[in-house]
């Protein structure tokens, strides 16, 4: 019997961190979601669609998706300077571009849909969890969508391909690749990679990421159904 490779925090190569998804946590938002995954804590709110007052930014043929990713100063071990910085502006843009292909924006001309993602505690993989939470909150706001989006990261640590990197693995590992997919049609809406992977390793990593995303997709569906069963 071969002994399986166990990661530093006791997980196998294909295990996700413990995940808790909740829908409808904010009273004043049209839709909202709360995610806990390992030590990550993220809260997402959706406001709109509502008429855009600045006519300059409004589009006549569809809604404008505006996304704001913000990390609280107390989210990381060393205090982060509050306010937007290079990283959060980049992640806001990434997330809004990852979500755009799945929303029917053309149903709401001249409006804006505002998405705000607040990271209360961070431990690696917040951009993926931001996408997961954003799609849950959009579904809760009853905005027409083609599918729910799920996302997770894969990477290479100690020459092995592993799923859902923690912060330490992210820093010490050899590669990190966050992916967002539409699970029903297997379309990739967002992919990033830093580090080095060979061709075979990339294929293996992609396959593993799809498995992880499909698992998260089931959790998302359960979270949405649970909210409506309570009602």
């Amino acid at each position: 019997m071969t002994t399986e490779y166990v990661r530093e925090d006791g997980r196998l190569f294909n295990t996700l961190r413990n995940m808790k998804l909740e829908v409808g946590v904010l009273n004043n938002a049209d839709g909202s979601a709360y995610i806990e995954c390992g030590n990550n804590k993220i809260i997402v709110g959706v406001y709109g669609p509502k008429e855009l007052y600045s006519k300059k930014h409004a589009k006549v043929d569809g809604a404008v998706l505006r996304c704001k990713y913000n990390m609280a100063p107390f989210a990381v071990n060393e205090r982060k300077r509050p306010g937007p910085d290079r990283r959060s502006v980049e992640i806001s843009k990434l997330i809004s571009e990852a979500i755009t292909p799945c929303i029917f924006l053309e149903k709401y001309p001249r409006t804006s849909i505002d998405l705000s993602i607040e990271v209360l505690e961070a431990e690696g993989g917040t951009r993926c969890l931001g996408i997961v939470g954003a799609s849950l909150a959009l579904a809760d706001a009853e905005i027409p969508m083609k599918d729910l989006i799920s996302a997770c990261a894969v990477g290479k640590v100690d020459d092995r391909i592993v799923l859902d990197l923690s912060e330490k693995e992210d820093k010490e590992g050899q590669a990190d690749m966050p992916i967002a997919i539409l699970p029903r049609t297997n379309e990739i809406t967002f992919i990033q990679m830093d580090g080095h992977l060979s061709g075979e390793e990339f294929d293996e990593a992609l396959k593993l990421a799809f498995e992880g995303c499909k698992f998260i997709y089931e959790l998302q569906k359960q979270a949405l159904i649970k909210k409506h069963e309570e009602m």
Partner: protein
Amino acid sequence: MLFVEQKELVLPGTLLTDNDYKLGRNTFKQKDKIYSDITGLAYFNSDNVTVIPLNYKYEPQYGDLIIGKVLSSSYSSWSIDLNSTYNGFLPTTELYDKNEQNLSSIINVNDKLLLRVAHVDEIKRVKLTIRSQGLGKFNQGVIIRVKQPTIHFLSEENAFLASMIRECTGSDIIIGKNGLIWINGRSEEIEKIIKIIEYIDERPFQHNLIKSVQNIIATKLII
């Protein structure tokens, strides 16, 4: 083949059917299969399939009777809050008295108006009208806000419930399609009516809701 049951809860992207149904509200077609695009309840009718959202905003349509609040006024129109995604506009040419110079003496900001939707164009600009029988400004009464399914319940085939309440209490009710209900009458009657409407608002999808509402009207209002 149907992949979900009648009135089952569906999520965005749930496969509904691969039969040759017509597309109803909140559905879309991809590779000859019909999917839902919203969280709601799936309804299969004789030739089309729709998904009814559980909690949605009003969408203006031509001819709807609505209750609106005046947000602001400009030289040629008033902007009206419709309790919807979009605001409506009421042109000043709609006024009866063309000679009146001081417009604020007729319609002011924060006035509540009973209006009808005159036109909705492709980019969802909502033009309203006040020139019709019974439309105008509210001077008294109470306006309450309910969810959209409640309005659907009270205004379609069950419109007799509203007239039943009217007859039993001797008070006036106007149901605006945009989720607002205006009630006028004696204060104790208004309280009773609000309680009935709140009862409907809590469970708009309940089985046999008409009967239980009729029972409540019979016990609370007539005695």
